[in-house]
């Protein structure tokens, strides 16, 4: 039994390379390979979480020691976040193979999904700047393919152009860092960036923020998000909403903590402002939408802004272990499940516009209740997971006397509650239009939705123990 985090990248890749060979033998058999691979991945992850402690450790590849070879960073907290991401990927994959496998060219999309999982795991695990670029580009290409699943060629094109611009800026920044500091390892960059002017750090950090904003749905480069969410398939929306955006946000936080940790007050101040602006603009635009998928897309943008601004507030003090940071990571974890549940549920109902969803709760009682659980978790209602992360966040922000932040946060929350409740009200208390055809929902889909809502309720009843498993992610990791 080998216990290396690199297996999480290698196993899905192995399945991906196996698929074309299997496809030539039997066209149906390729269904089972991704499922086996992701199950095995989850199994390996459980082993790794058990074995590894909570302090950050470095795993080498190729047998070369840490600042020179490519290294992966792992501890049990990263394991928990990866587990959630892989679980959502599994749910998306099961749904894809059951319901959307026959849509178009099944071979290519199966391959795209399985390699996307490998790339996402790589983005979360890697501790090397250029390796992060490679995995980001891999995840992005998988994203371009998945975005075309329902003939959304124009959104996909837009995504390619925006994301390529971002990744080229990232490459420019990476090579500049290498030229000045002489290393590509995230953890050792910060101590080698010593005799440079403060101006250099400002330009470099702005470059990195703009570069990473395209995948993590932050402000400058997120114009693709609503368009892609609107046009892709259900599986694709879960992939973008829960899997890719979480991994990208985690990668951004990792770069911020390891490369730009401490001392760069200007950077974190401006990042807080960018994050809060993303939050407000996202919520405000979502407020005006009458299409559920667009609402989720804009609210997803807003959540990314919230998490990044909270993280940068806590990084400004030079600490990475305080309660604000932990609450932000908890919020990241909760969003995975809630967004996945809403996107899956609304996708299963079959319609996205408010007009067609009027009164659908009367016809689809159980599905509507499950969607409502997800919505209540996102807007932060008491028994569910989302309440606790927002509660911890506000509590720790008030304890640190960040009153303006809390005010902006609460103001945006009012918008959020309003538009999501309008959606709920539209579902429950409007007259059902009898001309609209109701989609059948199969047992498997119900099972997937129930398991997601079970996760939300479970976290809602054990908030502090779950939060403890992901708190202090980057302790002991700074070389």
């Amino acid at each position: 039994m080998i216990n290396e985090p690199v297996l999480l990248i290698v196993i899905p890749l192995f399945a991906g390379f196996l698929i074309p060979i299997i496809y030539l033998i039997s066209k149906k058999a390729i269904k089972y390979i991704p499922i086996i691979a992701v199950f095995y991945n989850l199994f390996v992850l459980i082993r790794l979480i058990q074995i590894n402690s909570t302090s950050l450790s470095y795993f080498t590849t190729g047998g070369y020691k840490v600042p020179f070879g490519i290294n992966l960073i792992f501890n049990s907290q990263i394991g928990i976040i990866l587990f959630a991401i892989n679980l959502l990927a599994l749910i998306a994959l099961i749904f894809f193979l059951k319901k959307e496998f026959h849509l178009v060219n099944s071979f290519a999309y199966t391959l795209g999904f399985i390699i996307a999982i490998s790339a996402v795991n790589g983005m979360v695990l890697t501790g090397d700047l250029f390796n992060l670029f490679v995995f980001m580009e891999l995840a992005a290409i998988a994203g371009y393919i998945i975005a075309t699943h329902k003939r959304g060629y124009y959104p996909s094109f837009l995504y390619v152009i925006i994301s390529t611009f971002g990744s080229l800026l990232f490459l420019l920044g990476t090579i500049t860092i290498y030229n000045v500091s002489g290393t590509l390892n995230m953890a050792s960059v910060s101590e080698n960036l010593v005799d440079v002017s403060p101006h250099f750090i400002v330009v470099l950090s702005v470059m990195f923020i703009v570069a990473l904003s395209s995948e993590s749905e932050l402000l400058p480069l997120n114009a693709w998000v609503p368009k892609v969410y609107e046009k892709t398939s259900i599986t694709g929306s879960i992939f973008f909403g829960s899997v890719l955006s979480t991994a990208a946000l985690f990668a951004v936080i990792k770069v911020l903590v390891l490369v730009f940790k401490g001392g760069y007050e200007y950077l974190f101040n401006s990042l807080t402002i960018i994050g809060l602006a993303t939050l407000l603009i996202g919520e405000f635009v979502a407020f005006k939408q009458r299409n559920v998928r667009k609402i989720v897309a804009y609210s997803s943008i807003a959540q990314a802004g919230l998490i990044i601004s909270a993280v940068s507030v806590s990084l400004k003090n030079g600490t990475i272990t305080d309660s604000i940071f932990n609450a932000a990571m908890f919020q990241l974890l909760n969003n995975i499940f809630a967004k996945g549940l809403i996107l899956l549920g609304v996708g299963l109902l079959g319609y996205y516009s408010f007009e067609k969803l009027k009164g659908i709760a009367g016809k689809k009682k159980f599905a509507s209740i499950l969607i409502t659980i997800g919505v209540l978790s996102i807007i932060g209602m008491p028994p569910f997971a989302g309440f606790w992360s927002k509660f911890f966040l506000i509590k720790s922000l008030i304890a640190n006397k960040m009153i303006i932040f809390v005010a902006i946060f609460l103001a945006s929350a009012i918008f959020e509650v309003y538009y999501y409740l309008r959606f709920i009200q539209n579902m429950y208390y409007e007259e059902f239009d009898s001309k609209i055809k109701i989609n059948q929902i199969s047992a498997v889909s119900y099972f997937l939705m129930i398991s997601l809502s079970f996760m939300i309720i479970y976290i809602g009843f054990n908030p502090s123990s779950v939060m403890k498993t992901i708190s202090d992610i980057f302790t002991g990791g700074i070389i």
Partner: protein
Amino acid sequence: MGEIINYWTFIYGPLAIFLVGVYGLLTQKNLFKLVISINIMDLGVNLYIIALGYMDNASAPIYTAKLAVTSSRFVDPVPQALVLTSIVISVAVTAFVLALVIKNYEKYNTLDLIKIKGIEND
């Protein structure tokens, strides 16, 4: 004088090419021209990577019978390795996005960004 010219061409040349690509990205309306702008940006970034690895009076980082010892003067091999990865990735993205342009043309019968936007919003 030659020194200054070298300095400028080495660093501002690639950046200028990159910015020509950015200009194309901001002004062009034809999908194919946008792809070409992306490629020009790629070229600029690749040249920038190579320029940052270059050293005066150094040879290619390959050990040969003449340059057999570790104290020989070689240029930095890391940017050259990175630029290979970057080129391959840009080839892959270009192949994919060209296929996407073909499909866009099949779907909308035009390559004009503004017309496609108009059709999308209807």
